[in-house]
């Protein structure tokens, strides 16, 4: 079992919990799975959401998204070929209209090409797989996100990374459906083809504004962006949360920053977490930063409990930003 990823929502006063997981116990290599609990985690049922043949398994990331009207989407990488360094993969979205409780869950969407459950947003794209420092000091291979409008579950966004254009190492894409996943934008939404970036995370606020969190390797720095748009990224507000040296600290193990970050909407805020170089240099955090560990901002140095310097490492950072009107 690999990479469990949880989304939960209180529906009719009970927590509905959806865990996307790459479950190697599923038969026939159809490993993309959603574990569903509609009783607050007391019991779970496990559903393979892969309907097609795979290269022995699907990609690690399986991402659910749930709306208050009991619509549940899930996105996954349907691996069709894998040679150790590249996965030839479909980006697949499934949907369930009853919270995953019906007799045949997650089969509401079928692809016109083969009539099988799961809409193929992109077919047979080439996704680099590297468990070694490849994008800067980070490994790559399975960044994926999906988000649904909480007050209009017909609108759903999906984002992923693949090989992209020639010369790019890893390129992000965001697409949108406004008809419950039946059809998708033919090309990336404006301003969402993003070179040499990873850790994509999407969320939609109560007013329909979509948020996009990602980390881009740019000019020797890891730059963490949170972008908001109320019109599918035709216009957008782009905030840089962090811009830190990408070569410090030296990688000691993988992942370097992490295999994913997280974004969600709560009332009138987007809230999230990401990891970055933790040097206490205010210039690295244009929106401001506070630390819950001992630091000396004037000396730009981390310290221990006795005031002695501590080497820079990678730390998690929490943030919240107001949703744009």
């Amino acid at each position, binding site marked *: 079992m*690999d*990479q469990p990823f949880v989304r939960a929502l209180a529906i009719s006063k009970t927590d509905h919990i959806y865990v996307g997981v*790459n479950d*190697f116990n599923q038969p026939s290599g159809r*490993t993309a799975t959603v574990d569903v609990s509609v009783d607050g985690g007391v019991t779970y049922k496990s559903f393979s959401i892969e309907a097609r043949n795979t290269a*022995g*398994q699907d990609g*690690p990331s399986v991402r659910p998204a749930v709306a208050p009207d009991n619509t549940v989407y899930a996105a996954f990488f349907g691996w069709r070929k*894998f040679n150790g360094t590249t996965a030839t993969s479909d980006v697949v979205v499934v949907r369930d209209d009853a919270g995953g409780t019906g007799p045949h869950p997650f089969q509401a969407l079928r692809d016109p090409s083969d009539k099988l459950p799961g809409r193929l947003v992109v077919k047979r794209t080439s996704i680099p*797989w590297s*468990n*070694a420092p490849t994008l800067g000091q980070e*490994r790559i*291979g*399975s960044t994926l996100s999906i988000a649904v409008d909480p007050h209009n579950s017909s609108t759903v966004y999906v984002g992923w990374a693949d090989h992209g254009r020639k010369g790019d190492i890893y390129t992000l894409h965001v697409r949108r459906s406004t008809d419950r996943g039946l059809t998708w934008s033919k090309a990336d939404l404006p301003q969402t083809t993003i070179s040499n970036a990873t850790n994509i995370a999407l969320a939609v606020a109560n007013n329909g504004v979509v948020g996009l969190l990602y980390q881009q390797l740019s000019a020797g720095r890891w730059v963490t962006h949170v972008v908001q748009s109320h019109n599918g990224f035709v216009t957008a507000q782009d905030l840089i949360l962090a811009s830190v040296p990408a070569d410090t600290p030296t*990688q*000691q*193990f*993988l*992942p370097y920053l992490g*295999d994913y970050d997280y974004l969600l909407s709560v009332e009138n805020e987007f809230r999230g977490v990401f990891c970055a170089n933790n040097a206490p240099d205010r210039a690295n955090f244009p929106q401001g930063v506070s630390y*819950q*560990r*001992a630091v000396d901002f004037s000396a730009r140095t981390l310290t*221990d*409990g*006795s005031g002695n310097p*501590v080497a820079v490492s990678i730390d998690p950072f929490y943030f919240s930003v107001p949703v744009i009107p």
Partner: protein
Amino acid sequence: MNSSLSFLAGILSTVLLVPSAARFLEGQNNQAALAKQSSIVFSGTVSQLGAVSFVGVPQSPQTIVVRVDSVLKKPAAVSLKKGDNVTVEVKDPSAFQPGAQATFYTEGWIFGSGVAVKELGHDFNAGGGVPAEGSPTGQPALGQMQKQISDQDLQDRIASSDLVVIGRITDVHRWTIPKSAAARYHVSEHSADWHEAVLQIKSILKGTKPKGNKMAVRFPLSREVAWVNSPKFQKQQQGIFFLKKDQVSGDPTASIGGYQVDAYTSLKPGDWLPLSDEARVRSLLKN
């Protein structure tokens, strides 16, 4: 007459010394058990009662502040060293006075701008001071205690090993799972990047010597966080190898010299020790 008195004195000494020695051994066993149970062990000096060392720790009559004199055991991720002030939630605060020096056996409680721990047990240091090498009171000296903790870890490692082998690596190559077992192999970010070392056996310290003089030892070369601290073997590397039968890589057998043999794994930091530790390992094997 003199010889009878001497004989009698000898008996008395023996009678008096035996319970003392028993208490000493019992104390050592208790300390070893406490040390094993504890995640953080340190020697320190009590500086404040009913106080805490950093904001965020709930202050109570049970919390005391201790200045660290020496750290004996801690997880690598915890920053703790001589001179740090630690909050200890003790079991019996009336047992402590400012200036008292003790060894604290603890588990982690709160980690923030400082460290707070919960007491599992303590030993007051003889004479109120930092325990010294060769302490005559039955309290183990710092060096002895550190060795005791280290020996306990090593004893656990020996106990959990199927084989303990002294030998030399003659070859290292990438190992890929055979097609017959490939269904059990899965791709994830946590993949081990298995490599196989051929280990030439010099002697067996624990377990039954495998057939032949060589054996296959699988180890993860991956720098993934799950595997980064596993031993990474190189050709000609010698030492003491603590091995388990392979239940991880997907195939429990290996081929050496055309023969099918059991495959072994070496996964945890410390599953290899240099030859300089041979005497210590042999000594612990006798216990």
